[in-house]
């Protein structure tokens, strides 16, 4: 076999392993796996320089199905493991695959701190609003009042909203998409793949067994356009099956308006590059069914990455002090001869 860099002519199939995919029939994970394999093939990713890291949960089996380097970690810790990988070798393309319990409950601390540092990893969160692998307990994104195996009388936990959390943590790239919307999923993953720094993607993902149809409103072909809104940079926020509605700011508050009554010029124009994340945060607070739920890139700004800053500091110190010599290190400070 060749030890030269791979030829660029790879297809999605080249990213599949010989391992049998063991997710349930109807699980949204299948679609995400397929689209990510396509995206990596189309962007001519080097499989030998790509690493998938995961934690624990259904989604975290992902690395076993990707013919790249892979690390199936422990519950919640994938961002921390991925940080170590990226620091040791910043040349690697590092992806984290996680779920709502993994990233936001047991791994909440690592999730926010990876984003805060802007370490160059992509975090793909499969949000199905339920614990699947442990068989159906409520998760940190489960809607208030939902009956689950561990909340037979309704969940009394309030859910958190991953995109709001990420924006509050100074994320440089954040987007949302849906497992069943293949084209949009591909688009968002391509955008994430191209981002420098932490790219965070929330995927609405259906759990066919424990939380089936939780996102039916966002995937039903007949009605979804009444409930979702595609964000496009520089364009007004317009939605609806007939694209006849939009979002306007009333004071500080977004409101749904009819384009029959309001000119598109009065609508919010989406700016994913805005330095001030306030508008992106407001968009992340638009919930179903009161509002159409935004899909697409909320925020995409440039900022130095953690690994760049780390390596730059090393380079600067070396430029000033030279490469270290051990003898010089040992003899630093007060020494004496016997």
């Amino acid at each position: 076999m060749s030890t030269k860099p791979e030829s660029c002519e790879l297809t999605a199939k080249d990213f599949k392993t010989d391992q049998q995919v063991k997710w349930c029939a109807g699980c949204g994970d299948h679609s995400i796996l397929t689209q990510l394999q396509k995206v990596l093939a189309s962007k001519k990713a080097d499989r030998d320089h790509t690493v998938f890291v995961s934690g624990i949960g259904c989604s975290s089996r992902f690395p076993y199905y990707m013919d790249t380097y892979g690390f199936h970690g422990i519950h919640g810790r994938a961002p921390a493991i991925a940080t170590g990988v990226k620091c040791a070798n910043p040349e690697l393309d590092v992806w984290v695959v996680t779920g709502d319990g993994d990233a936001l409950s047991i791994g909440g601390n690592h999730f926010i701190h990876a984003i805060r540092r802007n370490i160059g990893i992509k975090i793909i969160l499969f949000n199905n609003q339920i614990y699947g692998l442990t068989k159906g307990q409520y998760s940190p994104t489960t809607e208030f009042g939902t009956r689950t195996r561990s909340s037979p009388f309704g969940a009394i936990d309030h859910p958190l909203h991953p995109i709001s959390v990420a924006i509050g943590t100074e994320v440089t790239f954040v987007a949302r998409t849906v497992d069943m919307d293949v084209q949009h999923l591909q688009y968002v993953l391509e955008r994430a793949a191209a981002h420098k720094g932490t790219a965070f993607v929330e995927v609405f993902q259906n759990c066919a067994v424990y939380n089936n149809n939780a996102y039916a409103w966002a995937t039903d072909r007949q009605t979804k356009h009444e409930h979702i809104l595609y964000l496009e940079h520089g364009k007004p926020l317009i939605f609806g099956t007939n694209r006849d509605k939009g979002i306007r700011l009333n004071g500080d508050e977004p409101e749904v308006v009819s384009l029959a009554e309001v000119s598109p010029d009065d609508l919010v124009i989406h700016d994913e590059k805005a330095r001030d994340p306030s508008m992106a945060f407001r968009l992340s607070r638009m919930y179903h069914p009161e509002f159409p739920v935004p899909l697409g890139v909320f925020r995409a700004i440039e900022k130095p990455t953690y690994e760049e800053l780390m390596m730059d500091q090393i380079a600067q110190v070396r430029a000033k002090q030279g490469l270290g010599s051990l003898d010089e290190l040992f003899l630093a400070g007060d020494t004496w001869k016997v």
Partner: protein
Amino acid sequence: MGPATSTDVDSNQRSTKPIKEIPQAAIRFAGDSGDGMQLVGSQFTATSAVYGNDVATFPDYPAEIRAPMGTLAGVSGFQVNFASRNIHTPGDRADVLVAMNPAALKVCLNDLAEGGILIVNSDEFTPSNLQRAQYDHNPLETNELSRYQLHSVPITQNTLEAVASTGLGPKEASRCKNFYALGLTYWLYDRPLEPTIRWINSKFGRVPAVARANTLALQAGYEFGEKSAAFKLRYRVRPADLPPGTYRNVTGNQAVALGFITAAQLAGKPLFYGSYPITPASEILHELSGEKRFDVRVFQAEDEIAAMCAVVGAAFAGAIAVTGTSGPGMALKQEAIGLAVMTELPCVIVNVQRGGPSTGLPTKTEQADLWQAIMGRNGECPLPVIAARSPADCFWTAIEATRVAVKYMTPVIMLSDGFLAMSSEPWRIPEAGELKPIEIRHPTDPSTFHPYARNEHGARPWAIPGTPGLRHRIGGLEKSDVYGTVSYAPANHQRMVTLRARKVANVVQDIPDQEVFGAPQGELLVVSWGGTFGAVRTAVERARETGQDVAHAHLRWLNPLPANLGDILRNFRRVLVCELNMGQLLLLLRAHYLVSAIGLHKVQGRPFMVSDITDKIDELLGGRSP
């Protein structure tokens, strides 16, 4: 042979008082947390080390950054033992106690040898300070200190007078009083002032008035000794007969940092250090953060778990990966250490042990994490465990731990402790060129690569991401032998558990046979491990000098244990295991070797005193031979 400096001669010429030669002395500086006692203790140590003495130190300070001024809780102490012969401990009891306030006197008086020199700053013995120290009277005005050579010196007042010419305000001026006390001890033990004056000038050079004031205070303290009628005798401790070489003083934490930089350089790899600040391990983080020229990649993680997980990730990606922590952090890291065992990735976890359980005694020493190191994870999860025996030994231990980690593809736990971390001793500096490289071979041939194939040592290949054609997936789930795919097969799990255990057991091939200090067989063998080496060795040396039939075995590797250890234990009629815990090694030795060893346990947050061990030896051997 130490350097006879010109200062040494000069000060002798200036002095009119007689000098007595002694082989060894210990001084304890004690004062309020804000009094600069650690600073002057370190200066006395540096000066004595450069002068050529063997030195051993014991800093002892409160967990609180600034406890209320003048209180017992706020007392900060620093003991330095210096000698003209090889010493292993900071000394059981001090020959001199410098007490800068009543609280320091109360807390440290027990550490002063009977008849010892007691220098107190009488200016601080005010009614309010006495009250803060919970004295209902002034001990300087009773005869309760008559067992000591008491010198009441108005240190604050004398310092203010000495530095008046600098124009500093009274508050700043009085801060120089620690240097006055240092100067007095320099006079008492005939130490040169120049190294400290140089240090003052480099430290305070930007504020000339402060540099000048500290220098004046130092000199005034020295001159006070010479002029005061109360001080009649000086002492001289000649340079020690240490093995030839170039030396410098290191604390255990400094030596750990130096050791891992060296190990990474010897392996030709970047050093990744992921850590979360924790007492008493943080100094390793600080030291390594400053050494970027060696491509040290320091990651201050969000928590202990992240630090360990990042280490696992960095090891996967091919770095020399290390984390440092203390007991509570160690507990948090254990799941991720198990992941490193399962994925068979090389890394080193340094546990600078402190008093526990829970938050325990953050700034105090203990050895109660041995079980946590050996048995602290879920599942069958063995890994090699090594313990450093002295501050300078931390350097060699760090290198050895790294060597074993990469050779056997396993996490290694290195045990230090709060005492080793903070105390210091002379380190004989090696020449970098003489250190053996750490050879690492990463596989590159896809036609023969299997992630869980094993070499003759039982280690799997370290294939790093970025290597063409070696793509593979590892993780915490059980993997099939050789091929490394997920496997729940019953027989495979049994086989993998056995293979992992056998690999760790193989490390014994890299462990030298256990040495015994003293006769290879006899009446009593004292066994110790880690930072208690100095006290135990000194006690056994003394016992042997008096003719007692006692030997000493100090363990370096705790897992696996040296191949010949069982035979050694059986060659003695009695075995005494001395540890700063309630019998953790004792249990392991009894379990491994079915020996009826007994233990000496101490959990007071302090190291063993030599006398603790000597007393026990005497008890077991029925008193000293005539």
